[in-house]
C-alpha cells in the first residue's frame, strides 16, 4: 500500500551497509528498499544483525560505512537526533521505558518530529491501560503495558517511519493479538514500518515483504506472493 499523494515514494534505501561495535564487524553489506506505506520485516536468527540494522540506520552503532537514504537525503554521517527529525520513530528491543519518568511523562517525552502525530487522548483511547496508569512510574507497568507505551510514545511524534524491534517478545498471546491490530491500523493509515521479528506467525500476515538476514547480510527477499512457495526454505533458515 502506498500513499495516495506520492505513489511509490521511496522512503528508505540502504546500500551496502557495514556496521561495527568496537572491533567486531556486525553488518556486512545490508541492502534494503522500503517504499512509503510498506511494512517489511527483518527475519533471522539471534545475532544475525537485525537489531544492529535498525540501530545503524539511526546512527546508534559504532563505525559505519555504505549509504543510507531517507526521504531522499543521504544521512549516514548525520547525528542521531537529526535523523529522528526526518520522521523516524524507534521502539527498541528492551522497550526503553524510563524508570525515572511517569507513564505520562514517558508518553510525551519524545519531541514531535513531524506534524500530524496522534494526540494523547487518541493514544489513551487506543491503549486504555495506559490512561488508567498515567501517574505510575513507567517501569511499574507490566511487560505488555510497557510495550504499548513504547509504541504509543512514538505515534505521538508524527513519525511516519517506525522501526520496531521485537515488539511481541515475551508477551501474552492476547497482547500480541492487540499489537497485530494496532499494526494493521497503522498500515491502513499509511505508516511505513520496519519490523524486526522472531515471531514469524505474527509478522507473516502483516508484511509486504520479508528480508531474511544471516551473518549481517540479506540472504533472501521474499515478497508476500512468494511466501507460500518459500515457506519450507524459510523455516529451515530460521530454524523454527
Amino acid at each position, binding site marked *: 500500500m502506498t500513499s495516495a499523494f506520492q505513489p511509490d515514494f521511496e522512503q528508505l534505501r540502504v546500500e551496502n551497509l557495514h556496521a561495527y561495535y568496537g572491533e567486531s564487524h556486525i553488518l556486512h553489506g545490508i541492502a534494503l528498499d522500503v517504499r512509503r506505506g510498506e511494512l517489511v520485516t527483518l527475519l533471522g536468527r539471534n545475532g544475525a544483525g537485525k537489531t544492529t540494522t535498525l540501530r545503524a540506520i539511526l546512527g546508534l552503532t559504532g563505525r559505519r560505512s555504505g549509504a543510507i537514504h531517507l526521504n531522499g537525503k543521504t544521512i549516514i554521517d548525520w547525528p*542521531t537526533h537529526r535523523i529522528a527529525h526526518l520522521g523516524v520513530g*524507534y521502539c527498541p528491543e528492551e522497550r*526503553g521505558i*524510563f524508570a525515572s*519518568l511517569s507513564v505520562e511523562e514517558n508518553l510525551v517525552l*519524545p519531541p514531535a518530529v513531524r506534524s500530524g502525530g496522534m494526540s494523547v487522548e487518541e493514544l489513551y483511547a487506543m491503549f486504555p491501560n495506559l490512561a488508567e496508569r498515567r501517574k505510575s512510574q513507567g517501569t511499574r507497568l507490566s511487560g505488555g503495558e510497557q510495550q504499548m507505551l513504547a509504541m504509543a510514545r512514538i505515534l505521538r*511524534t508524527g513519525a511516519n517511519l517506525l522501526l520496531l524491534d521485537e515488539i511481541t517478545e515475551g508477551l501474552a498471546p492476547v497482547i500480541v493479538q492487540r499489537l497485530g491490530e494496532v499494526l494493521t491500523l497503522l498500515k491502513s493509515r499509511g505508516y511505513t514500518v520496519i519490523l524486526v521479528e522472531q515471531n514469524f506467525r505474527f509478522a507473516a500476515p502483516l508484511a509486504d515483504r520479508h528480508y531474511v538476514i544471516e551473518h549481517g547480510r540479506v540472504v533472501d527477499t521474499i515478497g508476500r506472493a512468494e511466501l507460500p512457495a518459500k515457506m519450507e526454505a524459510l523455516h529451515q533458515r530460521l530454524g523454527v
Partner: protein
Amino acid sequence: MDFLNIPLPAVLAQLVVGLINGAFYALLSLGLAIIFGLLNIINFAHGAQYMLGAFFAWFGVQYLGIDYWFALLLVPIAVGAIGMLLERFLLSKLYREDHLYGLLLTFGLALIIEGVFVQLYGVSGKPYAVPEALRGALNLGFMFLPKYRAWVIVASVVVCLGAWLVIERTKLGAYLRAGTENPRLLQAFGVNVPMMITLTYGFGVALAAFAGVLAAPIFQVSPKMGSDLIIVVFAVVVIGGMGSILGSILTGLGLGLVEGLTKVVWPEASSTVIFVIMAIVLLVRPAGLFGRER
C-alpha cells in the same frame, strides 16, 4: 534546658552555623550530582569553579564597579559559559573512555586554575564587603545571626529547591532524567543530547559559581577556598548517593547540621565526622543514602 549538659542556646547556635556550611555543601553537591548524572564525569574542577565564582565577584567590585547583586546574577553566567566551552572542547572528547579520564582531566584543570590564581594573587584572602542591605544581625533569642548568613541559607535553599522542582516537575527536567538514564535512546527520539550535555555542565558549574559569590563575603576570596571545601563536598555526594538530586540537597544540609552538632559535643571531631559517616555509609549502603544501584 540542656543537651548532654551543654546549654541549649549553644547547641542551637552551632546548628545554625552548621546550616550555613550545609547551605554551601548542598549547592555544590547538587551541581556535582547533576553533572555526574548526565555526563558520568566526576567534576573535580568544581572547587576551582566555586573559587572562580568568588574571584569574579571580587574582580567585579575591584575593576568593573559591579556590585554584589549584579555579581550574583552575572558571575554564574560567565563562569557557566567558561564551563560550557570546557565541556565542548575538552570533556566531550572523553565520553567514550572510562570515568577515570574525566576525573583526571578535571582534576588537572583544577590544579592549573588554582596554580594560576596563587601565582597572580597569593594565598592570602581578599576581603569582600557584605552588601549594604544585609549588614547587621538578627536577634534569634539564643544568638545574634548576621543577616548575611541568614540570607545565605535562604538563597541556597531556594535555589536548590527551585532546581529540584525544575528537574522533577518540568519537561526540561524530564529530558534531564531521561538523558541520565539512557542518553542514546533520548537522542534517537530527536533530542539534541550533546547540546543538552553542554548546557547541563554549564548549569552545574554556574551553581558552583553562585555558591562562590555567596561565599565571598563570609570566607574571603582566596585561591585555596575551593580545594578546602570540595573534599568535604565529595564526601557529601558519596553519602547522598552519586547522581541523586534530592539526595545531594538533603545530605548537604543534613551533614552541615551534623557537623555543627559535633562541634558542640566533641569539637575535635567536627572536621572528621563527615568522613566517618562516609565510611559507615559505604560499608552499609554502598550506593549512598539516596542512590540507586547501577
